[in-house]
């Protein structure tokens, strides 16, 4: 790459502010970077740190109350600031293209794909209708859309999420832009789909020589696409260097902490402590004096609060916003005393009788027919088989993790166990109680032992009531305390989830996402229960908060000897949290066993594909990806035989299409449902290197 050539985009000292009711709030300040042709700059950071604001400022898509306070934005050497709206519009979609997080809202739902694609060509290139159509089909083929001709006639809702994002990327590339801005383009996608899109982005960058500004909160995704990485914190770049430098030798304390708080794919429950980042990202209206990261920094010293930090050069092309950058590189800076990790080296009880047992559990949803005949019950009844013939056992005090992509039935399984859905058949029992009845018909003693932690921190608490009242209500329900002692007990529960007494009278609106999730945990612990079902408890949280919540869950599990069912789409998190793991696909479990056994061969071909798709936060790792083709079939009409045969890269032949695979026991407690003989599965290459 010619370093002396003019950069495609050169941003200098950019500062952006928003007009708020309280006055002007500076959201981004002192941001400088440049991107050359064919280069990808990744911006990474937690939510609210200004990544998206930077991207929007470049094309001046800021919300009406936002404005660029200072700095310059040079695009191909000419200043974008001060350009008229009309000139900018000519650039956007032509020389600069954008891809956003949600592909569905980026496409017009009333127009056919073909029309939307050819429109940009007709407007910017003044091509004829016919010529534009031809180019559009070509581009759809380029982004590996199956049946491109046919896709042109479809409407956005007829495509899957991954296909929609491919269309959006195709649209962005149609005019061969010089600069492509991608804001969390794969965040809404499943991991196997994400892997395909990331591969595509890398390939297109090589072929089209486009400069890319890539924004993501996911370190693994950033590592797999970027040449250079900028780490943002509260509106500032705190570290910028080549991707290899940032990931292998992170210098800024924030970068280091960010790397450490994400569970790695090879990290198992025994190693069990994630160092979280204490505190929360300060709001732009209440910035601390001096270094913005100092209040959360492990290395913070008294001098850190004195003045704002500037970027220091620690190596050519490597800048760090920390006054101790030099010492950090040398590695001779004293850390603050850390909270001692809870008893490392967890003992796993083996051979204990399972306390939660499921045998051939099925949960079907009745699909209402659209026709008149079905109204009178004359049509064959159709069912969505959300959970189909699932069996497992969980010994007391351990966790079973369930992983799978969206729509695989893992949430339905969770709801069935706690009683929010009624199973259609099978056997399900916990501590000798039958779990087949819905919660309204369950025995009082059972209700008390079974609690759930939900996914969305914003809706898990009732916005109308104080924390104290909500946790207290659970306590009163479970009749452990008299009314007078409630406050005391609630405070002690809050203490268990590391919240102090001042939270008692707060309302949910005043809490951050992580704090809300802690309160929800306190509420679930009121019993205290024997079984807690966690349905994606951390997937809506930032990674630093996720680490803290995961640690807390582990600590609570140890303290109260709780059995847990942990549901997540994130394989690293499940590995970190679980003793046993089950992999689900289309309502069925295709592999289940001890966590370590799942993450190394032999595995089910689907597990292999899932594992190989997880983006790893290390740019030097070259992995052979097992890319799944096609989309997940509808659960209303699942494929015959092995339900994975339509996408399986290791399909044997007609046996997969015709016969339901039987259980193959690979080891004690490790079952794989696949037709491929165990010896062959054992001989597969490991996709994850353990113990990194």
């Amino acid at each position, binding site marked *: 790459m010619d370093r002396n050539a003019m950069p495609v985009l050169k941003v200098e000292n950019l500062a952006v502010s928003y007009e708020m009711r309280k006055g002007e709030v500076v959201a981004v300040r002192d941001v400088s970077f440049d991107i050359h042709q064919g280069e990808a700059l990744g911006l990474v950071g937690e939510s609210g740190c200004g990544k998206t604001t930077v991207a929007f400022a470049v094309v001046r898509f800021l919300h009406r109350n936002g404005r660029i306070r200072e700095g310059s934005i040079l695009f191909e050497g000419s200043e974008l600031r001060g350009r008229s709206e009309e000139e900018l519009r000519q650039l956007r979609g032509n020389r600069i293209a954008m891809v956003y997080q949600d592909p569905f809202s980026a496409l017009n739902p009333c127009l056919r794909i073909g029309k939307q694609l050819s429109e940009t060509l007709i407007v910017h290139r003044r091509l004829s209708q016919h010529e534009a159509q031809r180019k559009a089909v070509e581009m759809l083929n380029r982004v590996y859309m199956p049946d491109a001709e046919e896709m042109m006639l479809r409407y956005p809702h007829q495509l899957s999420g991954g296909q929609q994002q491919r269309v959006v990327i195709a649209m962005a590339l149609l005019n061969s832009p010089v600069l492509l801005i991608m804001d969390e383009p794969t965040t809404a996608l499943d991991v196997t789909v994400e892997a395909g899109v990331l591969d595509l982005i890398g390939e297109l960058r090589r072929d089209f020589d486009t400069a890319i500004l890539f924004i993501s909160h996911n370190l693994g995704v950033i590592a797999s696409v970027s040449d250079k990485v900028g780490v943002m914190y509260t509106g500032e770049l705190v570290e910028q260097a080549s991707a290899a430098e940032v990931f292998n030798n992170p210098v800024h304390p924030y970068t280091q902490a960010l790397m450490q708080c994400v569970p790695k794919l090879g990290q198992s429950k025994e190693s069990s402590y994630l160092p979280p980042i204490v505190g929360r990202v300060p709001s732009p209206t209440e910035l601390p004096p001096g270094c913005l990261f100092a209040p959360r920094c492990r290395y913070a010293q008294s001098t850190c609060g004195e003045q704002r930090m500037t970027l220091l050069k620690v190596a050519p092309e490597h800048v760090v916003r920390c006054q101790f950058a030099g010492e950090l590189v040398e590695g001779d800076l004293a850390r603050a005393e850390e909270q001692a990790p809870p008893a490392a080296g967890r003992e796993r009880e083996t051979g204990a009788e399972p306390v939660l047992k499921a045998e051939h559990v099925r949960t079907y949803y009745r699909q209402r027919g659209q026709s008149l005949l079905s109204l009178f019950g004359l049509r064959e009844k159709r069912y969505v088989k959300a959970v189909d013939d699932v069996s497992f056992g969980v010994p007391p005090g351990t966790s079973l993790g369930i992983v799978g992509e969206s729509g695989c039935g893992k949430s339905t399984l969770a709801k069935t166990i706690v009683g929010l859905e009624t199973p259609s058949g099978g056997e399900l029992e916990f501590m000798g109680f039958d779990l087949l009845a819905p919660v309204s018909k369950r025995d009082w003693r059972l209700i008390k032992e079974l609690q759930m932690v939900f996914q969305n921190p914003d*809706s898990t608490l009732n916005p109308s009531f104080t924390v104290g009242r909500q946790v207290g209500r659970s306590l009163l*329900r479970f009749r452990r305390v008299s009314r007078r002692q409630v406050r005391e007990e609630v405070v002690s529960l809050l203490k268990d989830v590391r919240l102090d007494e001042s939270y008692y009278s707060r309302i949910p609106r005043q809490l951050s996402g992580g704090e809300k999730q802690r309160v929800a945990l306190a509420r679930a612990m009121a019993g205290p229960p024997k079984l807690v079902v966690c349905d994606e408890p951390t997937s809506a949280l930032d990674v630093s908060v996720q680490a803290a919540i995961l640690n807390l869950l582990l600590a609570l599990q140890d303290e109260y000897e709780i059995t847990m069912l942990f549901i997540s789409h994130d394989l690293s998190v499940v590995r970190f949290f679980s003793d046993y793991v089950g992999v689900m696909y289309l309502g069925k479990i295709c592999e289940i066993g001890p966590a370590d056994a799942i993450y190394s061969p032999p595995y089910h071909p689907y597990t292999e594909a899932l594992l190989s798709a997880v983006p790893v936060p290390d740019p030097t790792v070259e992995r052979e990806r097992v890319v799944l083709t096609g989309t997940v079939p509808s659960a209303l009409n699942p494929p015959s035989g092995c339900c994975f045969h339509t996408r399986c890269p290791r399909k044997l032949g007609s046996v997969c299409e015709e016969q339901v695979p039987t259980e193959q026991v690979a080891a004690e407690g490790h079952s794989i449902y696949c037709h491929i003989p165990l010896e062959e599965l054992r001989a597969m290459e490991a996709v994850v290197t353990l113990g990194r």
Partner: protein
Amino acid sequence: MTTGEEAGAENRTARGALGRRVRDALAPVLASRVAVVGLALVVFWIFVAVFAPLITAYGPLEQVRGAANLGPTGGHILGTDHLGRDLWSRLAYGSRTILTLASLSILCALAVGTTLGLVGGYFGGWTDEIVMRVLDAMIAFPPILLYLIIMASLGASAMNVVLAITITGAPGIARLVRSLTLGIRTREYVSAAQLRGERSLYVMFVEILPNARGPIIIDAMLRMGYAVFAIGTLGFLGLGLPPPEPDWGSMVAQGRRYIWTNPWPVLWPSLAISSLVVGLNLFADGLREETMRYR
């Protein structure tokens, strides 16, 4: 000693918290000019209703000899009607009737409508089908026809006015509450309550209803306006309160015969009705816009 001080401090913070809550509640009202104008009109009529005996010189039924059909003069600021009754007095006392009846009927309609809506939305399935189809059937009738049927069959009285407005207003409220319930029912805190083994009544009224209150209150304001209008209409048709009572609707009806010689007995109550209705509508609209803005 220390406990006393602590209690005092607690009391102060409690008062501070109360003050903050009042300010928080009023903030959206004061932020919207439309809402302030509406509120001013409504507050004016509430003030008149509460202090009617203090701000009027004559009783509402008092007939002043030799002072029939007067226009606005020094003694009677709004004039008198054909029987020599002071129009301002009748208007002021009439506001008591109309405000009481309107609020009472809206409260009843809210109680009935909210319950039906919660039940339909929360339980779904057949319960929902039955409740909603019955309510749909009632919505199919033009409201004025329903008023007439109810009043004609039950007779004219204050209680029956309340009943008529409750019956016509409840279906609309139920629809609104049902749709709000459908949205809130799937929230995770509702699931959490179910997992605590809470009874359905508790979940509906304690977990769901408080979070639906915003739109319900705004809708109730608008309905209050319709109720004022309906009470006026019923009074005008002679189906409201029995004759000598000061009732804005019947005042218009009685004055109608002398409209060419003395328009004032018709004009004032008409203006009163419209100002109250407009006030309530403006207040509700302003409030709605202002609360949506910060959502």
